[in-house]
């Protein structure tokens, strides 16, 4: 009982559940170890890394710039084998060692990181260009931006008891509104505000239909995504495809270089980004603080866990849900702004390509906490940008499979963690005051 209760953090668990939990832990750990063993074989023992193949790690964002750190060259085979072995150890520890909940998350983190490093070493083995580490870090951070904004949006909704599957639609609407406004007014800020409002409009639709008309929220979210895809696609065909020069210009916020921080080696590029990038990362601690340290946050969590009790003490459940869902729409809308004005790209049909759903997955994997969702978003952000990050290398993997990475990683991670997570108790259940 002692090991099981530390593992689950629940002392009132019946014996059957404990046995099931131990078994689940064993299966998860052994599966992880087996996958790591396959990686050892695939990344460490293949001809690509054999002999004296070396992997070059470039430590400057612009490799031709003078000064700074020089590249590091490491023997591919040894490094790949070492990290794969570390991953195997993590898997075994997960299966057999009595780890606390917090430690388990760290072990999982090390596991994923070692497999990723082994993979990168294998991919870049023998390449003269080498892996540009600062560039990979910057790409990952950029790829994570919409996922962070989307998962924070989902977080606000679910913590107040509304499931927001419509993040995807809010992205699309935000992106569309941002581009069409910025292009026709010429003002980036007008575009950004319009994009947020576009997302909020979708959020308002979600709020009204979920709270007033009580439609099942998962179904509603998917249908709203369909609606957003249809509306933006239709308007794109009717307005943008013929008058692209007027209504669909690629405009972007320029980068703001933070003096001092931007010259830090390796991670300096993170401080040479545009305003939306900074905003997304600042919002993570802000939302955490608001949710866990303010009266509003306490009320929001109460409404998401037990609306009846919240109502009894005088919290206006429905009103709070409306406000939070619409605010969440603003955040998703900002995610849409990032996809267009943040990346200086024009609008395209269905351009969010499932990022809204990946953000939702990040929220679930991050266990409905802002910090956890942020961590998951960074992981998925890395997977999203993998294809771009490796484009300069002569990879043995077809591009389509690299492009699949974010989706496959999401499936694997959700499958690995899915059963262990618990959403806010009232999430998805409409509240009818009676």
């Amino acid at each position, binding site marked *: 009982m002692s090991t099981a209760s530390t593992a689950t953090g629940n002392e009132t668990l019946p014996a059957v559940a404990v046995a099931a939990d131990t078994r689940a832990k064993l299966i998860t750990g052994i599966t992880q170890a087996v996958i790591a063993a396959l990686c050892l074989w695939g990344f460490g023992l293949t001809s690509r890394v054999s002999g004296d193949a070396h992997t070059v790690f470039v430590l400057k964002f612009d490799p031709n710039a003078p000064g700074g750190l020089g590249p590091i060259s490491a023997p591919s085979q040894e490094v790949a084998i070492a990290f794969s072995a570390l991953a195997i150890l993590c898997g075994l520890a997960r299966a057999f060692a009595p780890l606390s909940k917090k430690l388990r998350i760290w072990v999982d983190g090390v596991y994923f990181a070692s497999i990723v490093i082994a993979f990168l070493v294998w991919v870049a083995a023998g390449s003269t260009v080498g892996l540009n580490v600062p560039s990979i870090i910057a790409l990952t951070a950029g790829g994570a931006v919409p996922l962070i904004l989307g998962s924070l949006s989902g977080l606000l909704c679910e913590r107040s008891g509304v499931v927001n599957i419509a993040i995807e639609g809010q992205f699309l609407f935000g992106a569309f509104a941002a581009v069409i406004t910025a292009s026709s007014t010429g003002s980036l800020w007008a575009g950004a505000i319009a994009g947020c409002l576009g997302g909020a409009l979708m959020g308002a639709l979600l709020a009204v239909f979920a709270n007033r008309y009580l*439609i099942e929220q998962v179904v509603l979210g*998917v249908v709203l995504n369909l609606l957003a895809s249809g509306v933006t696609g239709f*308007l794109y065909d009717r307005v943008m495809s013929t008058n692209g020069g007027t209504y669909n210009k690629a405009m972007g916020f320029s980068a703001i270089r933070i003096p001092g921080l931007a010259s830090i080696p390796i991670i300096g590029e993170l401080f040479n980004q545009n305003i939306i990038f900074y905003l997304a990362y600042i919002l993570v601690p802000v939302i955490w603080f608001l949710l866990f340290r303010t009266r509003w946050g306490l009320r929001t969590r109460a409404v998401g866990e037990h609306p009846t009790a919240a109502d009894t003490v005088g919290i206006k459940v429905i009103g709070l849900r409306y406000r939070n869902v619409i605010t969440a729409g603003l955040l998703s809308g900002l995610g849409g702004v990032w996809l267009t004005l943040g990346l200086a790209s024009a609008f395209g049909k269905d351009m969010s390509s499932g990022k809204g759903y990946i953000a939702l997955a990040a929220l679930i994997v991050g266990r409905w906490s802002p910090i956890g969702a942020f961590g998951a978003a960074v992981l998925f952000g890395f997977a999203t940008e993998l294809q771009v990050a490796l484009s300069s290398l002569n990879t043995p993997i*077809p591009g389509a499979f690299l492009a699949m990475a974010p989706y*496959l990683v*999401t499936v694997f991670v959700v*499958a690995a963690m*899915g059963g262990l997570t618990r959403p806010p108790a009232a999430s*998805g259940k409409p509240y009818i005051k009676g």
Partner: protein
Amino acid sequence: MSTPEPEKNEAAGAASATPAPEPKPKPDRPPRDWGVIIRNVFTAENGAMVTFLAILLALVVGAIMIVLSNTDTMNQLGYFFASPGDFLSSAWNDISSAYSSLFKGAIFDPATVSGTPEQFFGPISNTLEYATPLIFGGLAISVAFRAGMFNIGGQGQLIVGAIFASYVGFSWTALPGLLHMIVAVLAGIVGGMLYGGVVGWLKAKRGAHEVIVTIMLNYVALLFLGGWLLNTSVFHNPAAAGQAISKPAGSTAVLPHLFGDQLFTDIGLLFAIAATFAVAWFFKRSKLGFEVRAVGLRPSAAKTAGINVSRVQIASMLISGGLMGLIGVTQTLGLANPNNNSLSPNIDAGLGFSAITVALLGRTRPWGVVGASLLFGALQAGGALMQTQAQVSIEIITVIQALIVIFVAAPQLVKEIFRLRAHKIDTGRGEGGEAAPTVDPFHTTETITVAGGEE
């Protein structure tokens, strides 16, 4: 739009005037009151009326969008008060040209009344051809939905089904005529089943949220097909250099025409009707179907009753995937395929998602799905003509479909807009009465939010 309003006012007056049926010792039915019956048509409880008004509302919103998105018409709005006729007439032109070509493409074209029967029945047969995959898809969503799962992975499942069917179609040409087609169809079903079954397994055994898993697998299938498979030597058609397109299926695997060579309907429609009968039987009569419904209504109760919830979830996803695979079959081997029965990256044509709206509008009932498929098939067929004739993007059909579903899901909203009566007037005849609990896909909170199967 305002027609129901006087009805409602009259009804309100009449309702108070109608005396309550006197209690009688004998359960004798009071006489039919046709006035009340007609008034009862205009209530929020009448599903057919709500559906009709929902379609009407969706078309109105669609019309507004068509006008708003026409920049020429909107320019005339700038001097609306100087010359309102300009704006109104071109707005009317936009709407009428779009919706009349929608009608001509979907039902019939008045100009063909004196033409050949093929011309006359052409639009209807197009509608049937477009409805066929929607029937499969709607049934697929329904089967998963009744088990408490929301399968939005139709796109991926139908792509894998199409890959399997296409492979058999172009490579196993040694098989004799009919057998080749049957094997190709079965291969498509198996492909869809495998891809759907993975989701069921992940949901049942690993507690992975099926909405996320299915949508991710959609992108995996799309990238696998378009980004890799169609460029491999096994699949790529050497005659179409530079195009991501597969070899065409052998003629023996192609689904034959149903109503003669001139009409655009293939025997896929027969499969769809057979599938509808099968799913109806499955829900009503089979043991597994009963278990599926039990799990969907309340997994914990089903488990207590001795039903293996994991097994039921996996089985329903297998069936759902198999039905989605049939879309892949008709998309590749049927007449709907525009590329000489070969596989292309956009083989799914958005059907995986249209299927969701079909299942919801049909309220996950097999024959309701058929009705909804005919409606949305008509919209698709008409939308294709609307795109070419009136230059209105076919995306508007997606908008209309989504709006119809939202309005149907919120009868309260329709009631408020049209000022319908909330409840039926009791005729004292006991019609309807205590009906069996009906499926309502829009309010099944309990079944959906149960995360992580039963473990």
